[in-house]
């Protein structure tokens, strides 16, 4: 197992190199001269040239890539052009805001989404299921920023229960987290429901019933334990992608998180901020996916044993795998 994690951590390195490359390519796509764009049309030719030199834009692409990678390896993520503050420490400061938003958003959506999904799956062909599906579909189909605005208007302006923006105390977190969680909750509920239905069709559920187990035990022990595995994947994906999705929530509620930092950077064409910001968020994302995969492997004995058994009996007895392996080999041949 440790070997597997180590291998996955090693895999992070080429991934990060790749991300750095993609980020630089994106920046290279900027129409026109970035230095000119930065300084505006009033700048003189010398000023532009000076800035080009400063940003290293005169160097060939590969040299810039190499320098970027080298600096990052040394822990130097560059400094913002606008504020002159180092990107890394700036992001570290803002990180907790985004983290709270993403973590609570994911927790909300999980603790609500999973029971709703199970409930719907247990009540198929009834109005309860139809209602649950329909509501979750509406949640998925709603623009989250719009819903956030409606909530602000209702809870903040009309009822004045909650602050409409900014984070002063815990109350300020409620609306942003709910706004984050709503669509994700619906996504998780839908996934949970369809996986549950799929599992309930399996033979081993019939086996469990024919042992005389109570329906409760069949559903919550046998079915849920299997159905939750793909849902974990989805939750991991949700968690990761909300790192990007938090951007819009942060803008709406004026939360000084990573998303807003990058957004400002993008608006100002603050290249060091964009480069390093995207790289750091993507690395976080990759680490989260890694954690999910490891959890996945721990939950599912079939995957778990792939990494532990190898040591125990090396290439020895294979269980009914011969046909399958032949087929797999066949496919690659």
């Amino acid at each position, binding site marked *: 197992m440790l070997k597997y994690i180590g291998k996955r951590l090693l895999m992070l390195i080429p991934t990060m190199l790749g991300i750095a490359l993609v980020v630089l390519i994106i920046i290279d796509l900027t129409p026109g001269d970035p230095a000119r764009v930065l300084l505006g049309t009033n700048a003189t030719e010398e000023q532009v040239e000076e800035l080009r030199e400063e940003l290293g834009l005169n160097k060939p692409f590969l040299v810039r890539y190499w320098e970027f990678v080298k600096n990052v390896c040394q822990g130097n993520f560059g400094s913002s052009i606008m504020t002159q503050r180092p990107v890394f420490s700036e992001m570290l400061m803002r990180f907790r805001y985004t983290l709270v938003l993403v973590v609570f958003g994911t927790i909300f959506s999980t603790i609500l989404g999973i029971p709703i999904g199970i409930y719907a799956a247990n009540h198929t062909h009834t109005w309860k299921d139809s209602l649950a599906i329909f509501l979750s579909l509406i949640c998925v189909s709603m623009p989250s920023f719009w819903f956030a605005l409606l909530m602000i208007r209702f809870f903040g302006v009309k009822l004045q229960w909650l602050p409409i923006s900014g984070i002063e105390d815990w109350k300020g977190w409620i609306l942003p987290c709910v706004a984050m969680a709503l669509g994700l909750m619906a996504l998780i509920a839908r996934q949970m429901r369809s996986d549950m239905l799929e599992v309930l069709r399996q033979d081993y559920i019939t086996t469990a019933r024919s042992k005389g187990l109570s329906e409760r035990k069949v559903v919550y022990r046998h079915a849920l334990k299997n159905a939750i595995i793909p849902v974990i994947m989805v939750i991991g994906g949700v968690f990761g992608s909300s790192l990007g999705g938090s951007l819009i929530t942060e803008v709406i509620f004026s939360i000084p998180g990573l998303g807003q930092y990058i957004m400002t950077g993008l608006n100002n064409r603050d290249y060091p901020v964009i480069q390093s910001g995207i790289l750091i968020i993507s690395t976080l994302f990759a680490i989260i996916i890694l954690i999910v995969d490891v959890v996945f492997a721990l939950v599912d004995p079939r995957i778990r044993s792939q990494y532990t058994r190898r040591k125990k009996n090396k*290439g020895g*007895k294979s269980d009914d795998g*011969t*046909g399958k392996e*032949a087929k797999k*080999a*066949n496919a690659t*041949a």
Partner: protein
Amino acid sequence: MAPLLEVHNLKKYFKTKAGPLHAVDDVTFTLDTGKTLGVVGESGCGKSTLGRTLLHLTDVTDGKIFFEGEDITYPSRSKLKKLREQMQIIFQDPFSSLDPRMTVGEAIMEPLKMRGGMSKADMQAKTKELMDTVGLAARFEHSYPHELDGGRRQRIGIARALSLDPKFIVCDEPVSALDVSIQAQVINLMLDLQEERGFAYMFVTHDLSVVKYISDEIMVMYLGQMVEKAPSDELFANTLHPYSKALLSAIPIPKYPNNTKRILIEGEITSPINPKPGCRFAARCRYACEACSQPQKLEEYTPGHYVACCRYKELINIKEEM
């Protein structure tokens, strides 16, 4: 005259992470026009891979294949195209071997289209004729496979294989997915067609009663190797290899009372990945001795009856006991 098909020391290994998987290891046989070779063995013994390798649906690892006296082990592209017209295959599962998006007529016509050189009207006429030959009513021409039952679907598979007038057909468990009464219909059809058109079958199956019924000669495979090969009646009358004996005795016979003694073999099939030299059955064989860890030679017991067991002569006289 050269036999229709001659196979010498054919090998097919698949690459796997754990090492080479010996799917077919050193198989040698010949097959004459109009004859049927039955290939039996349990799952994972390489019998299906053997058929697919002969048809070049996967590459040959080593060995030689001759078709009508000509070496076809590594055919050129144009040669392969010709070959495939003469060598066809009927698949096991009539549910998955037909493209669900093609109607019965389209599926049967496809091989003709691929061969080319026929007008559309001719192809349609030929399709009708083929459907008639295999006993499919004309009204099914525009049906989709999923609308038909297993027996009819298998008839489509047969019609497809017949359409190019092949000389050799690999039948990969063509009836094992069918119910007995339908199975009998399809077997009869295949026998009729063989009588009429004189092609050779290689009949791959795990069902020994079917194979005895349809084959002239039977080859028993275990983990990629041929352990015994003999004319059909000879094999059942004088089984030599301990594995063949166990296999034959394991078939439940639909007869009551049934006094045949079962020979139970211990354990289960092992992995064909990186096998040790020597007899692969030795690990489960009650007569295994030291000599069994040496590679086994194929010996001829009576004309046409080959066995790969170093102790077969001693074993002839041993009565199996439970």
